[in-house]
């Protein structure tokens, strides 16, 4: 392992802010996209449900 200690790892040789803001951005983007995907699926299934109830009514 390159780092001597976990605190050095977190410090990233003084560039912690820039490195973790970058990795954090990617992590955030992936998480947000997964949430959006799940929400879209739920919306699609709800629309089908609603349409089916409408159908069975008349």
């Amino acid at each position: 392992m390159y780092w001597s200690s976990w605190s050095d790892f977190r410090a990233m040789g003084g560039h912690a802010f820039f490195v973790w803001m970058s990795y954090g951005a990617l992590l955030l983007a992936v998480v947000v996209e997964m949430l959006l995907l799940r929400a879209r699926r739920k919306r699609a299934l709800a629309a089908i449900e609603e349409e089916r109830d409408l159908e069975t009514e008349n």
Partner: protein
Amino acid sequence: MNWFYFSSPSTFYGLAGRLAPWCFVSAAVLAAWGLYLGLLVAPTDAQQGEVYRVIFIHVPTAWMSMFLYFIMACYCGLTLVFNTRLSAMMARAIAPTGAMFTFVALWTGSFWGRPTWGTYWVWDARLTSELVLLFLYFGYIALANAFEDPRRGDRAAALLALIGVVNLPIIYFSVQWWNTLHQGSSVNFKGTSMHVTMLTGMLVMSFAAWMYAIGAALVRVRSIILERERRTQWVRELKAA
């Protein structure tokens, strides 16, 4: 096996459902390995210090942003030539993920630029071309959703993507040309020669990003199929089951 079998939305819906989890799992495994290599094992960079480690996500996302636009354009070509519905849905499913990768590439590029060249936004050839690519993605997504009839949006956006993919290399060349005129020496992202773990780290992360993109596209295409085929019988039974 007639390869058109999977091109009908209902059969592809099932296939995508089975494939997507595997894609995400392999993406996670590859990402973990890549990050281990990039963040924990790879040595520091003589000139730039530790901030160069951003390369392990900046370069893969930049590659993926271009690669996904190309794949999207291929699906759009299929849509225009064979008028198949599923290829149009796949193109729509890829675009948001491509735009996300482009945005992350821009974000990481600028955060890498700050300590290295003193400013968040450096008019470097690659970053500027990425910015134009982001507009091309937004143009595709906006045009695809700008019509009442989704089939009309598919075809219009498909042609735009084809025009875009033909123009992409020209844009990259012209920005490179423009950059060498104004900036003088082009700023090189790679820094010193690539240490072997650096290269493998980047490649592994690229595969992770690729797997993730396939997974995300498959999940999104399933939602699109549900939205488009909500009146069909098979979707009805599916929901009831």
